[in-house]
């Protein structure tokens, strides 16, 4: 009996967390697992903090990952990594896109964006960080940054690269298949080297 694996994707509404979770859902089904995912739609999608849970295994009950249970936490933004880091298991892996998006309290000067987030997180957790926006611009499309991050995370999950590429092909819009595959490959290599 396989232990249920818990993945979280966190970020800022509009960063593409839903596309990433669709790819994750696709790959777990392709491998024949039971899977449940939970998403945020509606108002919070408007620039708010968003979280998606993905759980897969032989039999999954609840659709959410709870505090202290995440095997892999994928964060598309530094502050959001910090917000959800306590959801990680003791031996969980945190993959962070090293990007800063100021929340409104910071924009208007009512709060300060914390310094040295990655260093603080690394004191307690295994942290892999990447400037995915830079990597994405390097391959020619800044919007693929989330697939680059997913490529890194894939090194910490149980699926073959060929399967990931096949699922990306069936999930993303047809016109963007090639660039997204390229982005995944780039992330996968970065993740392998980390």
């Amino acid at each position: 009996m396989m232990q249920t694996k818990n993945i979280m994707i966190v970020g800022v509404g509009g960063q593409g967390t839903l596309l990433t979770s669709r790819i994750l859902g696709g790959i777990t089904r392709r491998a024949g697992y039971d899977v449940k995912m939970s998403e945020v739609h509606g108002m919070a999608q408007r620039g708010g903090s968003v979280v998606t849970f993905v759980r897969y295994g032989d039999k999954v009950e609840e659709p959410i990952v709870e505090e202290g249970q995440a095997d892999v936490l994928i964060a598309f933004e530094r502050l959001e990594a910090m917000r959800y880091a306590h959801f990680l298991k003791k031996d969980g892996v945190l993959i962070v896109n090293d990007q800063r998006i100021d929340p409104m309290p910071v924009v208007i000067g009512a709060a300060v964006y914390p310094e040295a987030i990655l260093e603080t997180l690394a004191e307690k957790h295994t942290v892999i960080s990447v400037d995915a926006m830079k990597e994405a611009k390097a391959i020619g499309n800044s919007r693929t940054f989330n697939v680059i991050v997913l490529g890194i995370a894939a090194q910490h999950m149980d699926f073959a690269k060929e399967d990931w590429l096949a699922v990306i092909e069936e999930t993303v819009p047809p016109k963007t298949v090639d660039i997204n595959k390229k982005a995944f490959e780039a992330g996968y290599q970065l993740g392998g080297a980390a």
Partner: protein
Amino acid sequence: MEKKVIMLGNAAIARGAYEAGVKVSAAYPGTPSTEISENIVKYKDVLYSEWSPNEKVALEVAIGASISGVRSLASMKHVGLNVASDPLYTVSYIGTNGGLVIVVADDPGLYSSQNEQDTRAVARAAKVPVLEPSDSMEAKEFTKFAYEMSEKYDTPVILRTTTRLAHSQGVVTLEQRQEIEDRPYEKNIAKHVMMPGNAKFRHIAVEEREKKLAEEGCAFPINRVEYQDTSIGVITSGIPYLYVKEALPNASVLKLGMVNPLPRKLIEEFASRVEKLYIVEELDPIIEEQVRSWGIAAVGKEILTVQGEYSANMIRQAIGKETLDLEPPAQIPVRPPILCPGCPHRSTFHVLNQLHIHAAGDIGCYTLGAVAPLNVVDTTVCMGSSISSLHGMEKAKGFDYIKNWVAVIGDSTFMHTGINSLMNMVYNQSKGTVLILDNSTTGMTGHQDHAATGKTLMGDATYAIDIAGICKAMGVPSVQIVNAFDLPLLKQAVKEETAREALSVIVVKAPCALLDKRPVTVQYRIDPEKCKQCGMCMKPGCPAMTKDRDGAITINDTMCNGCGLCAGICRFGAVEKVGVR
């Protein structure tokens, strides 16, 4: 061969309706129920679906379809049921011809709502049975079962979901659509015309139905007993059932698929066989209070909250008495939702803020005009309330008091119920200014069409109701249409109309920034040579703009969508238009 797919809870409900042979579906968008209609329209070859102007209309459309003999669906969020409660309470008496299912989505945790009300309480009062699935597969199956029930017991059935179910995905087995014959219509005024003499007798039928359902429900397969260790027994339903299974894998569980009326004998039997009985239900103690009223000892809300969502960890601690070694969350700035870059509401609120105007607000993205840095919206109650509450203020305190007030309401919300409130202002000779923020869509729920957009849910072009024209036809003496990004003109219009002792409407037009999916071709950037770092352009709180520690202001080129609001504000010509890099 059976096909298994991953489906959102809401998509599974739509699939269930399709498989059950539903022919008519009506709804008004509302998180977390919107995706039901967005998915049901995929079956448009075999069933009719629509966006109605509000939930009351949607339910009445479904009632009409049911009376005519076909299976029908109405879907809405919990507060939508308040709007539809008038037909709900009476269709409970009328019952059904073709099956009638009303999907109502509750929002424990208030992800996207103005309150945390519990639909089961409304259903109890209306004496309408309620089914509550736990995951996507059950969402589909329960929907189908609801139609069987609806026809067998001559009752509308509420399928209650919560945000967590509606927006979770799970594996669903697809089946064929059942071909359901239309049931013949027979004229029957004793059943279909609810005047006192008829309704009196229908009430008797309703009470009998409740009793019968409470008895026969004990044998419904959707109510399921899982006996294991009997030292702990839990009665639960819906999403909390999954938390119970995670947290207490060895406990005995009575999983209720029907939560109104309660299958009393089944519950009494279960209670008698377990040592300690717990009731785990999110929101109000609806099951708990009934079970206790039968003289059964049970533990519930003493140890579990009536607010927000539950979790397995919560149950591990409260019932399992476990001490969890959890890391506390980091103390960091919150990230509330904000208006998008390029949002026309930001421009409008900037103008109102500059003029020190208070707004009676409404339900939509523009409710965000209440918070810093815009700080314009003073009140938000429910759909359509902006206009009527402004009217109430004027009647209470007179025109002078509301000279620095306006009502703000979106186009979709105006069509929903705001239109009635404006009618009232005309009729009762109110003075005041109403801003209809027309972004050509229902924005917050993710861009649904409505009666003024010119397109139906099924994708057909249709007559677009002219909002300004309707206001004029009602008799509003002054109606202006202004572009949301034309700052000088908008400012002048608001000044002019609020100063005049009369009723006025300003239709503030500009499409939702997310509506245009084409790539951005124009953006803005700050010329550091010209910028005085005064911060005026930062005032409306555009998320694409940042000011670093040394005061330099920059515009993020991955976020700017070229609305030009900042350029319109800058007095030094320091914001320049550029092509996209």
